[in-house]
């Protein structure tokens, strides 16, 4: 038998602040949503919508993904994180950049605050790339998961650089085409290049692990990787240089890539030994189902269907909502409860296990809050989308209220875990262990 190494986990101060920041950002996002019901009646290039989007993608999604990835990268790649210091600097830059950028968009201040924010974010993405690339280089075996994760980091940096150029262009115009043109590029590289690739890269390892399944065939994942990246690269070239009518074709490539990932997960589900699907995994499957919506809308927004302009504007908004408040948020709302309890448990009880009876990670948060969180989330998403399509501010407000309740329940649960301390532990009394 070959000997293995012990835990590669980083320190808790590398990981846990990301979860705290993200929970507060999600709460802030839902409160901002309450005050933005008037912003959904027009074009998506609106200060309030830009604020909401960036709080969602940076403060909420990217922040928690960074934190979770520092914990999960050693699991996926089977080696230690390259640098904990770099991770902490990255956290500071991402946090400061997000707050400054949100302030700039909300007040539509396009000067130095926005430039400083964009620079801080690009610096954060550079440090993040150095950290994950160097970590991946130490991995004993280069896997398809490493391909997904490292490539997603590069796309994140490209997204950030395009964003920085746009921020500078607000004050010193130098880009040849209008802003919306670059905004489409910025958004799609972020959505497909960063979020989708990263989520697939981590998901192919974690989801089978949580289901106690061992799918063997990685060919589908190779196809998924190649199709999504090829679709994205072709889209960028076409959008920037050629401007043909082939955009739906690139959308098909990305959708087929996602399909391959879903087929891989179906293989995992077919071999899973765990019959119990807990609330965290249920929410994960809800997220995967929601992913269908933006994939369908991708064809609508990339094809010239001659829809009325007002309807097209609403569809664009629903497209964005279905990605960021839909797929990505749903996944985070579920996976937080598959990762955070274990991280906190490990740090709280690592010196006590084997000597005292310890609670299980699933005992460290309220399942009732989690159940209601998932219910209010789905209600909020459906009502919000209906409100945007119907252009009814009252319905949008109702959806925003449901989102705020979701965020409150989520934040209470997250902080209950973050503040958890080991206490009143009882030593083992030996008898019948399985009794």
């Amino acid at each position, binding site marked *: *038998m070959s000997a293995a190494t*012990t835990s590669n986990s980083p320190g808790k101060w590398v990981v846990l602040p990301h979860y705290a920041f993200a929970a507060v950002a999600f709460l802030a996002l839902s409160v901002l949503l309450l005050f933005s019901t008037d912003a959904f009646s027009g074009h998506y290039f609106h200060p309030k919508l830009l604020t909401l989007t960036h709080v969602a993608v940076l403060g909420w999604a990217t922040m928690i993904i960074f934190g979770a990835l520092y914990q999960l990268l050693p699991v996926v790649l089977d080696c230690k994180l390259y640098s904990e210091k770099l991770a902490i600097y990255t956290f500071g830059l991402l946090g400061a950049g997000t707050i400054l950028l949100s302030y700039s968009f909300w007040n539509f201040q396009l000067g130095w605050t926005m430039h400083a924010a964009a620079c801080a974010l690009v610096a954060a993405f550079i440090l993040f790339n150095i950290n994950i690339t160097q970590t991946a280089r130490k991995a004993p075996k280069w896997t398809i998961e490493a391909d997904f994760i490292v490539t997603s980091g590069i796309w994140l940096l490209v997204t950030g650089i395009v964003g920085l150029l746009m921020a500078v262009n607000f004050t010193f115009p130098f880009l040849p085409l209008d802003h919306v043109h670059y905004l489409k590029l910025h958004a799609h590289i972020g959505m497909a290049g960063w979020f989708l690739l990263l989520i697939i890269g981590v998901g192919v390892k974690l989801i089978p692990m949580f289901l106690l399944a061992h799918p063997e065939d990685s060919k589908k994942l190779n196809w998924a990787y190649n199709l999504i990246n090829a679709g994205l690269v072709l889209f960028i070239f076409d959008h920037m240089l050629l401007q043909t009518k082939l955009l739906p074709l690139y959308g098909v490539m990305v959708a087929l890539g996602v399909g391959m990932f879903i087929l891989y997960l179906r293989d995992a589900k077919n071999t899973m*030994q765990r*019959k119990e699907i807990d609330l965290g995994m249920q929410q994960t499957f809800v997220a995967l189902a929601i992913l269908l919506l933006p994939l369908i809308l991708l064809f609508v927004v990339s094809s010239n269907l001659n829809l009325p302009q007002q309807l097209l504007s609403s569809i664009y908004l629903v497209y964005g909502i279905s990605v960021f408040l839909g797929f990505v948020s749903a996944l985070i709302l579920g996976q937080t409860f598959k990762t955070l309890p274990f991280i906190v448990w490990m740090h709280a009880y690592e010196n006590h296990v084997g000597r005292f009876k310890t609670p299980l990670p699933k005992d460290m948060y309220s399942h009732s809050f989690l159940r209601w969180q998932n219910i209010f989330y789905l209600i909020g998403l459906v009502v919000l989308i209906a409100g945007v399509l119907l252009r009814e501010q009252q319905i949008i407000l109702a959806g925003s209220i449901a989102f705020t309740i979701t965020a409150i329940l989520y934040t209470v649960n997250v902080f209950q875990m973050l503040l958890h301390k080991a206490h009143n532990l009882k030593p083992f009394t030996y008898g019948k262990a399985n009794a």
Partner: protein
Amino acid sequence: MEKQTHEESGPEVFETLKYIIDPEVGINIVDLGLVYKVSLEEEKLHVDLTLTTPGCPMSGTIVTATEQILLKRFPNLDIKVELVWTPMWTTEMITEEGMRQLNRKS
């Protein structure tokens, strides 16, 4: 996979290890099939165990738990716990009792 040597090393060791619960699955490490080998030579108790996936963040915690609980239960023995990855753990290694517990949770 090397058979778990209940008879050779005594069921007491396995009974003790059943107190260690895999925090994700909620089933003890013996019935989950993570304990590959237990051997006792003179005063040295040697345990080989694995995890459900390589790089598992719980590896250090589970190894420490195994060492702690065995030290407490068998204070006169020299305890050595080794984490191994071959053969790779599969769900077929879950015992009947483990499967019963998994299904009971559904």
